[in-house]
């Protein structure tokens, strides 16, 4: 099982245990289970934690607890917190390049392009934090003497089934727009390529993102996705990474508590989507998908 190494030496390397990231801590799965992760050629990379339903429920609880304080941060502060993630990823760039190259079976050059885009994506969304309300909110000219305005607010706890093929850039591209408005997130990482997400968790843990705001689980989708879709304390699900044959069941289950559902658009395949196309892969609509519009009325008078 060759570990990811930066530069070759004869030294026996210290390998990493790939753990979950829940509530700001790095537990193993409470179930004690792991699963074998290979590269696209089938060569062994590592044992990843195989999260259980209990781990998922713990993650939702951590997200719920973290949600209100995170949403209550000022928009400028959330923007800086997202930007800080970019700063820290930049510092670990070589590690991410090596891990993405290994996970996705890419050249270092190609992996480098993906990592650069992932870093820049945080910066792009960071800048949105204090502009969402101005672009998507409104002052409404009602036909009566009332102050009337509409403010976007985060939905709450969002379950993100991360893209399956793009282990880091795809994940960041779906995660940042959910996060920037103040939502808390439970991520089911790519099942086949989970390792870069674990390293992202290590970045997040040392960033200014409060513990519990982002929770990262690795494991088997067929085991975890139904639990995520059915969890009544999850307000919305992003089904980008849900397998086609699981989509109907996920939506039926999510409808039980009237969850908001964000889907991969028709005709777009997970594997073929070009995450480096900035026009397509970073969109204010992806922020809007996890917002609630709140309209406020007040009489005008002396």
């Amino acid at each position: 099982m060759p570990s990811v190494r930066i530069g070759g030496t004869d030294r026996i390397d210290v390998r990493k245990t790939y753990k979950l990231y829940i509530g700001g801590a790095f537990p193993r799965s409470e179930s004690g289970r792991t699963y074998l992760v290979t590269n696209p050629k089938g060569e062994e990379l590592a044992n990843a934690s195989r999260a259980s339903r209990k781990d998922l429920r713990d993650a939702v609880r951590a997200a719920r607890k973290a949600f209100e304080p995170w949403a209550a941060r000022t928009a400028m502060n959330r923007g800086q917190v997202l930007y800080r993630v970019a700063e820290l990823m930049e510092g670990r760039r070589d590690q991410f390049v090596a891990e993405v190259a290994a996970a996705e079976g890419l050249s270092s050059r190609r992996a480098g392009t993906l990592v650069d885009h992932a870093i820049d994506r945080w910066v792009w969304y960071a800048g949105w934090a204090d502009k969402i309300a101005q672009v998507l909110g409104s002052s409404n000219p009602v036909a009566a003497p009332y102050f009337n305005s509409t403010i976007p607010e985060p939905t709450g706890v969002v379950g993100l089934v991360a893209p399956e093929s793009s282990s880091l850039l795809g994940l960041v591209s779906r995660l940042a727009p959910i996060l920037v408005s103040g939502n808390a997130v439970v991520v089911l990482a790519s099942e086949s390529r989970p390792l870069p997400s674990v390293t992202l968790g290590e970045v997040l843990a040392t960033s200014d993102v409060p513990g519990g705001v982002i929770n990262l689980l690795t494991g088997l989708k067929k085991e975890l996705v139904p639990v995520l879709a059915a969890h009544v304390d999850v307000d919305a699900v992003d089904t980008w990474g849900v397998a086609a044959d699981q989509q109907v069941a996920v939506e039926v289950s999510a409808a039980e508590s009237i969850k908001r559902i964000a889907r991969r658009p028709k005709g777009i395949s997970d594997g073929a989507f070009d995450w480096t196309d900035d026009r397509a892969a970073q969109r204010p609509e992806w922020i809007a998908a996890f917002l609630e519009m709140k309209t406020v009325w007040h009489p005008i008078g002396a």
Partner: protein
Amino acid sequence: MTAMATETKPGAAVPATVPKNGGAPNSWGLGDGQAIPWEYAPAPESREIVTIRERYGLFVGGKDVASSDGLTFTTIDPSTEEPLAEIARATEADVDTAVRAARQAQSKSWGKLPGRERAKYLFRIARLLQERSREFAVLESIDSGKPIKESRDVDVPLAAAHFWYYAGWADKLDYAFPGRVAKPLGVAAQVIPWNFPLLMLAWKIAPALAAGNTVVLKPASTTPLTALLFADLCRQADLPPGVVNIITGPGEIGMALVTHPDVDKVAFTGSTAVGRKIAQGIAGQGKALTLELGGKAANIVFDDAPLDQAVEGIVNGIYFNQGEVCCAGSRLLVQESIADLLIAKLKDRLSTIRVGDPLDKNTDVGAINSRAQLDKITELVAAGVAEGAELYQPACELPGRGFFFRPTLFTNVAQSYRIAREEIFGPVLSTITFRTPEEAIEKANNTPYGLSAGIWTDKGSRILMMVKRMKAGVVWANTFNKFDPTSPFGGYKESGYGREGGLPGLQAYLRLEDR
């Protein structure tokens, strides 16, 4: 939307008596059970302006057609239980025909029409609604049971205003969404409830048409008449055939409509239970979906609130439209220190509410929409009593026939009671007390619903803090039950998703492509 009655002037359909007030005289100087010593002269609105046909067909492809199997159902006047008309009961084949007609119109005529021409059609409809407003108002009150003063002053003017507002968007889509090209979704399937039949039709049809979609709309089976009269308006407006199709029938037909494979967009207003079934019915189909579902709104009164205004707001919040309002302020959260005073004022005010003939211009609370709804309200009120809440109803007489229910006020309500948790959709208010703002927030948000909330206080900073903390899509501060086409409306949590009104209401009918 106006408050029900801001003055306590005499006039009601039925004599009222003074409520029990613990033996003390109330503000009328009258003791418990004493009759209010004035007569209410009837002030009936004339029905002459409306001609109700014996039979109505479906409105498909611009034509009035019978259902494919010839079956019909009866719509009745809920204030008399008298039949009004026979209505075609659509079949699945009719649903298919209607969707085809809509598809044809979308691809051949409406979808190709420049926005400025679509706009003019919608302006026409707005004007026609204004011109025929009294006719629509009277028909709405006859078919639904709502008081004429509400259909006349609220439902119909707001419906016209919705068409007016969205008419102006039809040729301005290029300016609405920066960096995007807005395209219609195609055919919209719309299912609406019986509490605001024409207004809900306007909320659904106006933005859909402005965006370039065509629609198949199913009104509720107890209130089809104003939708079918609207079909005549489409004819008068020379709207191309198939742009608006109206099919009538029971819930199964609504389900057949939304699940039809050639529908691109589904919009539903109604109960959370049915909304859930619709979302499940179209799971995996990739259709755009907006849901406007149930509610259990908290109307929160702080000790510094202007109490007389708050009383009017509470009354408007729960007794407007017989309480058959998804955003009704059905949970009164009152700060403990003023609870006794507020409840006394509220009981006093309830004694002047006039329940009766929907077509009487002085009626505040009309008929409940159907026997089934009346039964549901009756059952939940009985549950409230059984669980230990204290019931108060003014001693007004109810008409001898028709579906009527007294304005009802519960005190001593625990949050666990059914009347505090379930949407009653009737004139029933449940009172819960709190001590601190934090407790009010906790209790207000302690529901799976999240459609609306009300806040009554004189303190500006507290209003803004409460607004921020309410998990509700519409927050009324020092007012309640106000609506406007420019003002987005819709819920958090199990009250649904998507917004109607304003720019979000338009976007719900558009696909945004990269420029």
